[in-house]
């Protein structure tokens, strides 16, 4: 049953990822990205990472894809020249993909990760442990993330100001 759900979710996710890469229209690409993220959230649920599945949907599907759609519509790129693949780029991409998958295959064979079994907690204790870790072991990274978000916000405000008018030198 789990295996069946995993196979269905992975095929769905990969198909949507290919849709992002191959779609001619950027809006269709963003929609494929949304479906792909939904598939990954399903895989997270299967891995018992319920909070992360929720956050993924909330942050990625809710905020990131919506922002992408806003920008696509703002820039209005319906026209433009049609996309055509180039031989060199396609060859490099396929070679990189093949190398990556070969490397992981070797890792799986040599590292004997095939017989690893899932170790789990129940949902409640897992969430409690999660919060405990965030506020003890990872307290400094949490604060650094807060500063990062502040800096990103300031940077976006500065970038989105119109910089056309020259500043008067004083």
């Amino acid at each position, binding site marked *: 049953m789990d295996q069946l759900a995993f196979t269905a979710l992975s095929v769905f996710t990969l198909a949507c990822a290919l849709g992002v890469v191959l779609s001619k229209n950027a809006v269709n690409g963003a929609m494929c990205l949304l479906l792909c*993220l939904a598939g990954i959230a399903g895989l997270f649920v299967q891995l018992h990472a319920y909070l992360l599945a929720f956050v993924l949907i909330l942050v990625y599907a809710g905020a990131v894809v919506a922002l992408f759609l806003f920008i696509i519509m703002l820039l209005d790129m319906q026209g433009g020249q049609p996309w055509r693949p180039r031989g060199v780029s396609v060859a490099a*991409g396929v070679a990189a*993909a093949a190398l990556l998958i070969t490397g992981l295959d070797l890792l799986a064979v040599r590292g004997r*990760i095939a017989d690893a079994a899932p170790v789990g907690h129940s949902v409640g204790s897992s969430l409690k442990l999660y919060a405990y*870790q965030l506020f003890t072991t990872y307290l400094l990274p949490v604060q650094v993330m807060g500063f990062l978000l502040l800096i990103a916000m300031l940077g976006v405000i500065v970038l989105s100001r119109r910089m056309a008018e020259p500043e008067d030198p004083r």
Partner: protein
Amino acid sequence: MTPHLEAYLMLSAALFAVGFLGVLVRRNTLVIYMCLELMLVAATLALVAFSRFNGTEDGDVFVFFILTVAAAEVAGGLAIIVALFRARQTVQVDELNSLKH
């Protein structure tokens, strides 16, 4: 019968490879950016799978941070793309070649 760790890693690698392919073959900056996000999410899938099969929470916590950084990155990146579009009236990487000359 639960799927093996190997299967999750393979799926993660395949997603990463698809995203990488998109970054290499597409010419639209926004689509390239979407493919970058795809690569980031593929890496988080591997981390969550490792965390589940190792019995520790560290991978999950790390994914939490990755999601935060991704949100900040998207906001900044899209602001840069909009500023670029204002300056050059295009988002095709073929036409953004000021650094070539």
